[in-house]
């Protein structure tokens, strides 16, 4: 499968690390019964230092060309780490293309995006909004050296990168940024909502929510696609054709995975 441009770079970056460990053995995942730890690439073991660094980077607009967009600009916590609009424009106002997906439990998501099922890890995916050009989001294509310069100029970042990547003397580049972001995103976990607790035998949902749940799993048919503990089957489904978004066909060149494979999704609430 040919992956053009930055998507190819992202794949190459993680090509040596596609072997996934079942989990980082030294990392303590605090998960409810029945939830297994997510896969973690062998070359990006979970450490507190990488999570802390990734947390800071996630909220840093210096990852965008003009300092106006951070990951958190689109992945807003109050919107379950998604967005409140149909599509978010890029750093210079470039038109957005697709709805921002929620990052809740993204560590378990596969595929990670609707556009390219070839992006197998969060490390690969994190690079796309930073340097991608279809669509342009953070606008850093060709500016990887500038990204390194900005972060290296900050003494706090130099310390954080040294703690996170001690074997590599605090390497600061797009790759280590992506690894730290991935580590942080693996801890954006939600398995303790009112719905989760009700399913586990805890307090029942309020009446209105219970009626919604009945519809969701019944006549409304939502659960046909929105199934499983993360309310998604992670499959591409055929909806009405869209004139704007070619969906996964852009990456796979397979006509069957065509435009309009997702319906508009706004804030995702858990």
């Amino acid at each position, binding site marked *: 499968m040919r992956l053009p441009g930055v998507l190819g770079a992202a794949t190459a970056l993680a090509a040596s690390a596609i072997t996934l460990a079942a989990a980082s053995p030294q990392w303590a995942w605090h998960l409810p019964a029945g939830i297994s730890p997510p896969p973690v690439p062998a070359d990006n073991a979970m450490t507190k230092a990488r999570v802390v660094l990734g947390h800071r980077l996630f909220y840093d*607009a210096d990852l*965008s060309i003009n*300092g*106006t967009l951070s990951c958190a600009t689109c992945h807003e916590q109050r919107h379950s780490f998604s967005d409140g609009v149909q599509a978010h424009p890029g750093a210079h*106002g470039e038109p957005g293309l697709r709805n921002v997906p929620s990052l809740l439990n993204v560590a378990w998501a596969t595929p990670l995006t609707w556009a390219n099922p070839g992006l197998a890890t969060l490390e690969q995916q994190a690079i796309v909004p930073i340097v991608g050009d279809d669509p342009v989001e953070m606008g850093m294509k060709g500016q990887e050296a500038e990204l390194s310069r*900005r972060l290296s100029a900050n003494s706090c970042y130099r310390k954080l990168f040294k703690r996170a990547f001690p074997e590599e003397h605090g390497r600061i580049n797009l790759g280590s940024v992506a690894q730290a972001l991935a580590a942080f995103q693996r801890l954006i976990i939600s398995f303790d909502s009112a719905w989760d607790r009700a399913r586990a035998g805890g307090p029942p949902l309020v009446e209105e929510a219970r009626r919604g749940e009945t519809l969701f799993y019944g006549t409304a048919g939502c659960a046909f696609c929105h199934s499983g503990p993360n309310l998604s089957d992670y499959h591409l489904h055929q909806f009405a054709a869209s004139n704007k978004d070619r969906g996964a066909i852009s990456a796979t060149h397979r006509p069957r995975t065509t435009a309009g494979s997702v319906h508009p999704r706004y804030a995702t609430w858990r």
Partner: protein
Amino acid sequence: MIRTVVTIFFASAASLAALPAVAQDAMRHAHDSSSCASPGAMPPALAAWEGTRGSMTAVAKPGAIRSALLVLGKAYDVTLQPTPAVKYAVAPLKPGGSVSFGGLFAFDVAEPGAYRVPLSTHSWTDVIEDGQALQSVAHGHGPECTSLAKMVDYVLKSGRHILQIAANGDPTLSLMVVKLP
């Protein structure tokens, strides 16, 4: 008592939505004037936007705010400060990166009521009253096919206020503060 906010519906049908201040960033998505064949109509309340503008430089700290006093109803072309140099009165929700620009201005409110901050960019804005960042009561795009990109409304008490600009991609922008009818 908080007066009822008057929502103005412009000829361009750019209606304002009563949403929390954190949704300011969400309005970026639909304001694309690149395909406009002719300039759009500016409502009377914002007529000064297209008139002669003053110039002003934002200050980098609250203590210097008197040097950046805006006159209500007058449009300005302002110069901002590099974000690392700015000490905000209240930390913005979207502060911008080190390569972005921001700054502080002051304006005085004589009559309590609803006020609007129109801007030429989608930078993050805060109005500080009594040391607190106010929650906006409405926000929206500017009229179609104009240089007015964003508008944020606040209900204000009388007295001096601080206008904070953050996360602007360029060192300059245009802005003003107007009282809503």
